[in-house]
């Protein structure tokens, strides 16, 4: 199957996540908790994108997400687009927004942070600095950049 065919392979109902940096596709699956679901998932990695060099794409059949869930992806794929497909048609197209606070994903970069030693859900508030997102740990008050989070 050619790359072209894969990209256009039709989805009847579901969600297409496009423009994910190629290297972050597996992290995206993890963040969206897609590892153990039953639905059919099609993944493309290292596809050629006009704007971003190599990109990744994830298509999930019969699955629709809450915005809060999707917005967690903004940390690793700030330029990702979300296409909601119903009856083979794109019924909604949206961009991700950076959530003010994220909980339960990623690790604090501070090795002495209590969240790295006790069973505690991580919690960060986000701040955008230029094109970088920095995360302030709710507990140890140290800043982690989103690259160091995973």
């Amino acid at each position: 199957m050619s790359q072209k065919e894969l990209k256009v392979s039709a989805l009847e109902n579901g969600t297409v996540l496009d423009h994910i940096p190629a290297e972050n596709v597996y992290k995206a699956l993890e963040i969206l908790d897609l590892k153990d679901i039953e639905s059919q998932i099609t993944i493309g990695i290292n596809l050629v994108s006009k704007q971003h060099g190599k990109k990744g794409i994830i298509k999930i059949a019969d699955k629709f997400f809450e915005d809060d869930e999707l917005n967690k992806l903004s940390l690793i794929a700030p330029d990702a687009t979300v296409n909601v497909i119903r009856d083979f048609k794109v019924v909604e197209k949206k961009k991700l927004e950076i959530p003010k606070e994220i909980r339960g994903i990623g690790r604090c970069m501070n090795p002495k942070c209590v969240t790295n030693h006790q069973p505690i859900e991580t919690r960060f508030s986000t701040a955008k600095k230029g094109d970088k997102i920095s995360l302030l740990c709710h507990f140890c008050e140290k800043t982690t950049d989103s690259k160091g989070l995973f």
Partner: protein
Amino acid sequence: MKKSLISIRDFTKEEILHILETAKEFEQNPVQDFLTGKVIASLFFEPSTRTRLSFETAVNRLGARVIGFSDASNTSQSKGETLKDTIKMVNNYVDMIIMRHPLEGSSRYASEVADVPVVNAGDGANQHPSQTLLDLYSILQTQGTLDGLTINMVGDLKYGRTTHSLLQAMSHFKTKFVFTAPDELKMPKEYKEFLDSKGIEYIETASLEEHLNNCDILYMTRVQQERFTDPIEYERVKDCYSLDAEMLANVKDNMKILHPLPRVNEISQDVDETPYAYYFKQAENGLYVRMAIISYLLGHRPLR
């Protein structure tokens, strides 16, 4: 609603000034036992005799009783109990928890697990807000104001949490800062950006002499070995500054030297006899400030 003190940022300017005002009341009248019948936990998961004695004296002066431990090695934590379970258990017995813990963020977490107020007595290199408040109290006491002062911070400005918290607290007032540190121990970028965002001036230097004669407060710190991961770096900077009485010939009359103690070689003994030394009184002030914090959090000295 329950209020804890975990980070100096938890207190507004108004609350900070209220604590300092209340501390003054306790300094004038240190025996007020209105907490009779209360029990307060003092949980020191890492030893710190100085801070623990100051807190426990404050509790006793207010008439409450203390339970707790001064070292975690014989507690159920050392047998693998989670911090959450320890706090939940202690929470059932007491009206307040004062805790010190080597992990950063541990006190914030405890305050979310507990129903009673939690006072952070130091969480690793992160925060130690009662130290910051006693620093502010000492500055106010010696200068008569917190506004428009020049504060020269000296020594380990990279790892020294007392300087970071003091900087955050003083940002409420029109302070000018001098940061005196060797290259390896300069004030981290995030704190300088914080000052920039508030429009607060600062100067950086590696020379202790350079701005010694134009500051109101000389805030000396010890270079703490335990904060270093690289022993060679520590050896290189451990004795970077040493203040002696001779160097103080031309300082401002109102200038006072503060130090969170214990000191090692950064202030020589002959400075103690000069009118500029204030670090022993500063340590004593910790008692009144801690009495004020405990009273306020237990609702006995509310903001009006």
